[in-house]
């Protein structure tokens, strides 16, 4: 082999591929710098600082934004997740049942609640149910109402996730369990579901993130001061103080919950992929 056999062929336009790549990258960095400089020179930093990151206003939010807002957000999310998980498991099992009407019901439930806006479900639970049945109270007050609304919707999504998890467990597992004398139910509880839930922990974690954000819809339920969660809290204080800072701080509080959970879900997913190999 001789050296002149590997001489690079000149790209059309007289530029090598490397030179073109450099030019393109340089252009992108240049554009970025121009935009940053433009925004920085146009923005009124003083005004931005007073409105969005007002230290005095921010300090005034504590500790209530944590002890009331964050706590209630966490409570609504947890209750909604709990209701969604239990209901979702029941519907997933109905969806896989040999009894035809169960499968019908499960399919209808899943399609209905996946097709409705969550806000409508919240209004149904908060306004519609008391209107239809005067005097009936959903137990647990705001927590019960929010948890029920979130749970009803989450159950539809979780049912599909759980069903997929159950179906991902190889058929031989059920056969092995049954041939040891386990009943169908026992095999489901001791062998199939533990494996199915291991498979679906990452998507369930993502569902938890979604619920945490969706709990902000409690805003529309009409709740007392002590029942305010992050969004309502931020909105009320922004109105009182005539300042945007409370909304920013409430947003940061959400991210404190959601970003670590998303990272956790991604790590669990990556670990599963490694284990499957």
């Amino acid at each position, binding site marked *: 082999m001789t050296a002149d056999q590997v001489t690079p062929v000149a790209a059309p336009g007289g530029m090598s591929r490397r030179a073109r790549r450099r030019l393109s990258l340089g252009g992108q960095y240049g554009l970025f710098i121009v935009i940053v400089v433009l925004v920085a020179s146009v923005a009124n930093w003083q005004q931005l600082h007073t409105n969005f990151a007002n230290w005095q206003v921010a300090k005034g939010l504590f500790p209530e934004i944590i002890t009331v807002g964050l706590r209630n957000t966490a409570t609504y999310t947890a209750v909604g997740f709990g209701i969604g998980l239990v209901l979702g498991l029941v519907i997933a099992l109905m969806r896989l049942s040999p009894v035809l009407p169960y499968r019908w019901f499960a399919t209808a439930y899943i399609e209905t609640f996946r097709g409705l806006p969550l806000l409508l479900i919240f209004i149904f639970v908060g306004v519609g149910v008391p209107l239809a049945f005067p005097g009936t109270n959903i137990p647990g007050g705001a927590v019960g109402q929010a948890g029920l609304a979130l749970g009803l919707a989450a159950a539809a999504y979780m049912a599909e996730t759980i069903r997929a998890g159950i179906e991902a467990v*190889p058929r*031989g*597992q059920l*056969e*092995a*369990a*049954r*041939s*040891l*004398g*386990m*009943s169908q139910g*026992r095999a489901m509880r*001791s*062998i199939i579901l*533990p*494996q199915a839930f*291991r498979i679906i922990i990452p998507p369930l974690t993502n569902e938890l993130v979604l619920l945490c954000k969706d709990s902000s819809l409690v805003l529309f339920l009409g709740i007392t001061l002590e029942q305010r969660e992050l969004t309502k809290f931020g909105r009320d204080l922004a109105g009182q103080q005539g300042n945007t800072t409370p909304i920013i701080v409430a947003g940061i509080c959400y991210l404190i919950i959601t970003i670590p959970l998303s990272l956790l879900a991604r790590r669990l997913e990556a670990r599963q992929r490694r*284990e499957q190999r």
Partner: protein
Amino acid sequence: MTIMDKDTGWAAGAGRAVEISGLRKSFGSNEVLRGIDFHVERGEVVCVIGPSGSGKSTLLRCVNLLEEPTAGTVRVVGAEITDRDVDIDAVRRRIGMVFQSFNLFPHLTALGNVTIAQRKVLKRGKAEAERIARENLERVGLADKVDAYPGKLSGGQQQRVAIARALAMGPEVMLFDEPTSALDPELVGDVLGVMRGLAEAGMTMLVVTHEMSFAREVADRVVFMDGGVVVEEGPPARVISDPEHERTRAFLSRVLDPAAARVEGSGPSDKFGSDEANA
């Protein structure tokens, strides 16, 4: 004296281990078993051999009702499992099953795999279940792998855990569905060694296998199946070494002499070939 089991109403210790008559099984329009009459005496080791698709795995799976027979009767350790009123879970407790693909529970350790059915089905206490599990893991040569998860075990080790799992239930008959077909050739010996030990200890065994040397040395009786019927059965010395039927002879010459199979171009190219078409 016979003791009646209150769950199933059958007498423990009575009758043959397995008794099958007129067994038929179809999957859709495909009739896999076309009238099988067959039995296994208590303490007997019976090996079922035959080409892929001959129905031998289906036959085995009908013995513990993993497949529902289309017609015929199956009696196992005295219980007629084809009777719709039978408590099949109670009968399966007395039948051990070992699968080609092991089917260990991957979320449990070796010890967990061997204890879970003892605990949940036989309602044994934790200490007793673990003692029995350790005894059986030791019996299959895996005393040092008690805390290992199946994913960390070789195929041969996994299959031996699966055997221990079945043995821990105290079965009256053991079913083996091509237990070595999914194993690398160098791991086959360990599993066959364990099975040989079981046979010597007097366990009633029904083994679907491609391992002709195992069948010849361990089996009391060999059954040759082809096309969903039993073609020929008898002592291994006769069936394997001096078969009566042409079909048996053709099958054995392919299995025992892979070179001949390649020349004919009609048989499986190796005797460890998978038999999944049967399932």
